[in-house]
């Protein structure tokens, strides 16, 4: 068996770390994450509070763990929605071709032109800030990304012999898309999903930093960062820990995505060899 690329192993390790934190927080955190104890704020790291407490005396470890859960949940749901809709559109465009394909892809181009943050701010102005709005914004921005990936990959598959055979056998375009095209474009789509995960985690952190994502008391790395900003003089560690978590998560998913592409994309395998 071929040796796995280093970035895949490193990425998977970091992702497992963050995902582990998130999963454990479902059943256990060292302290209730929202429990305030203003008398014990800015406590240094100790046996009781492993990374100390924040400006309201809440346990930092517990907050980071629940923050990981929120980040992962937002990224997962948003990317899943974006990927489902995007891949469906891409497959449709590829299957139908002609003016429909052009139309769908031009719409996707327009979608690309929307910056995630500005789009989220617009949604917030209309619906008020909440985590759901953040998810909707990130999901929406993901649709054109996946539409492009799916269409480009599908167009290649459509020229293959087995697809020709299926068409000759009288199978409909939709059935071919479902039975033959979709399984064959799964690899690039999954790679793209992993990479978009990193983007989504970053976007969620940015939105929460701006107060447009998770609302208190639901902890979020982005909001922890923004709250720690004026405390840099008093307690710099409060900005460092969530910042580190974001770095680990984003780096982990990016590396994992790269690694997955390396092992699944035959062209890259050939080039490297």
């Amino acid at each position, binding site marked *: 068996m071929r040796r796995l690329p280093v970035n895949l192993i490193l990425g998977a390790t970091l992702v497992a770390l963050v995902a582990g934190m998130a999963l454990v927080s479902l059943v256990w955190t060292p302290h209730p994450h*929202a429990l*305030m104890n*203003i*008398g014990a*704020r800015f406590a240094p790291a100790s046996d009781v509070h492993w990374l100390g407490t924040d*400006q*309201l*005396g809440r346990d930092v470890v517990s907050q980071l763990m629940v923050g990981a859960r929120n980040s992962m949940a937002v990224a997962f749901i948003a990317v899943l929605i974006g990927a489902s809709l995007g891949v469906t559109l891409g497959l449709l465009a590829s299957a139908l071709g002609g003016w429909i394909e052009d139309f769908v892809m031009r719409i996707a181009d327009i979608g690309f032109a929307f910056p995630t943050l500005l789009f989220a701010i617009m949604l917030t*102005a209309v619906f*008020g*800030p*909440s985590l759901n709005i953040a998810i909707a914004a990130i999901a929406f921005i993901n649709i054109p990304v996946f539409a492009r990936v799916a269409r480009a990959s599908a167009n290649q598959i459509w020229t293959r012999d087995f697809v020709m055979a299926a068409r000759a056998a009288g199978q409909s375009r939709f059935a071919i898309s479902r039975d033959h095209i979709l399984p064959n474009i799964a690899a690039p789509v999954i790679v793209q999903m992993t990479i978009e995960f990193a983007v989504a985690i970053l976007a969620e952190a940015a939105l929460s930093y701006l*107060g447009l994502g998770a*609302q*208190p*008391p639901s902890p979020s790395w982005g909001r922890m960062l923004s709250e720690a*900003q*004026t*405390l*840099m*003089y*008093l307690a710099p560690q409060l900005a460092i820990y969530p910042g580190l978590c974001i770095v680990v998560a984003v780096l982990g998913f990016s590396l994992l995505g790269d690694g997955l592409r390396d092992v699944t994309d035959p062209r890259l395998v050939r080039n490297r060899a």
Partner: protein
Amino acid sequence: MISITARALLTAAAVAALVPAVADAQGRIAIGMQQEPTSLDPTSDATAAINVMLTQNVYEGLTTVDQSGAVQPQLARSWEISEDGLTYRFHLHEGVTFHDGTPMTAADVVFSFDRARAEDSTSPRRATFQPIESIAALDDHTVEIVLSRPDAFFLFDLAQGPAVIVGEASVETNAQRPVGTGAFRFDSWTRGDRLRLVKNADHRNADAVALDAVEFRFIAEPAAASAALLAEELDAFPGFPAPELVPQFEADPRFDVRISSTEGEVILAMNNAKEPFTDIRVRRAVSHALNRGEIIDGAMYGYAIPIGSFYPPHGPAHVDLTDRYPHDPDQARALLEEAGVAGASLTMRLPPFPYAQRSGEIIQAQLGAAGLDVRIESVEWGFWLEEVFRNKNYDFTIIAHTSPNDLGNFARGPDYFYGYEDEEFVALWDAIRTETDDETRLEMLRQGQRHITEQAVHGFLFQLPAIGIFRTGVEGFWESQPVLQLPLTEVSVN
């Protein structure tokens, strides 16, 4: 790559050291503002920042208030009050012009006040003008105002933003291009960034004004505010929003930190017109759920004085009512259960001010401990004004009331965003306004505070401190804040 970057940085630092900051130039000052208003017209919008920047500087009233809170002449150089306290005769300064060149005469006073008390008036404080029975220009520089009943606060109220004198020619555009008679004229407003004033050389006291240009910079983010001060882009930040950074500035010899009290009562407002707050047991439960010590420590880093009612602790009629509803989650829970709303889900809409945002998170936890499930929504200031203040579409909000003598808010009836209707208090407030004996009025003010606290109309939190951070050498700002105005006529930068 690294060495090139390092050299570039060193060069940049050397250049920066050679070029003095713009703010250092004599006669110019850059002032940080936390809040940016959506309009620049104090006669139609109660936003505090309008009064801070413009009242006394660009706009002037008949009277003004000095830093001790005493009424002083401004556009009126003197006045006489009849024996019965009903007729006021104001003598105006002569030769005053608006910034657009039109002369300011008695007719403008009549116009301004008639506009403010008209049926369709947009005045944010109509109560000021409500006692006026008639107003007439006796000649170009004399105005006579007849009241229907004595009003102890009349001269004081005339010094406030809603009572400034505006010109008929410019009134429609004041919201974007304010035109007044003050020592500074409006220069430009770049929304989201800055507002510039320049000295009005035609002003009657122009010789005494040291500043040639004033730049207000809107910086909502505490971290950005602190960075701008440290980079010496700002000379002053009179309403500094981050108490946790005070020790840092106190330790820095480049800055003076001045902390004073303000007229700003910070309250956890409850929508009294809406379920479940129509039930006094619920409002009392909320009062019992609050732990002011924790809120002040956690949100204000100890820099605030708790209040138990709606009156500033430094005022002459203050009574300490902070013990009326001691912090007791169990009692709060019991009251909520009695009222049948235990476990109810409510929304707290918070304006974008650090005191509100930070208090909100702590209060959310405290109400949670008493069995109320509160969801926080942080909203923009424009949204807050529209949805919370005008449309009364909220359960809880947190807001500082920075107007002086604003206990009368509770007499404003169900149309005000409190949604609070109380005929007994309306009668009491009418009596307070018309009482001319100081001691009797103070006693009635004490009674009013007790009444409001007894009704637990809102959760009363703390008096907003004014944390001012000034570059050393910036002098002449007010030392205390009897009204939320920032007169710049005596300010100098050395």
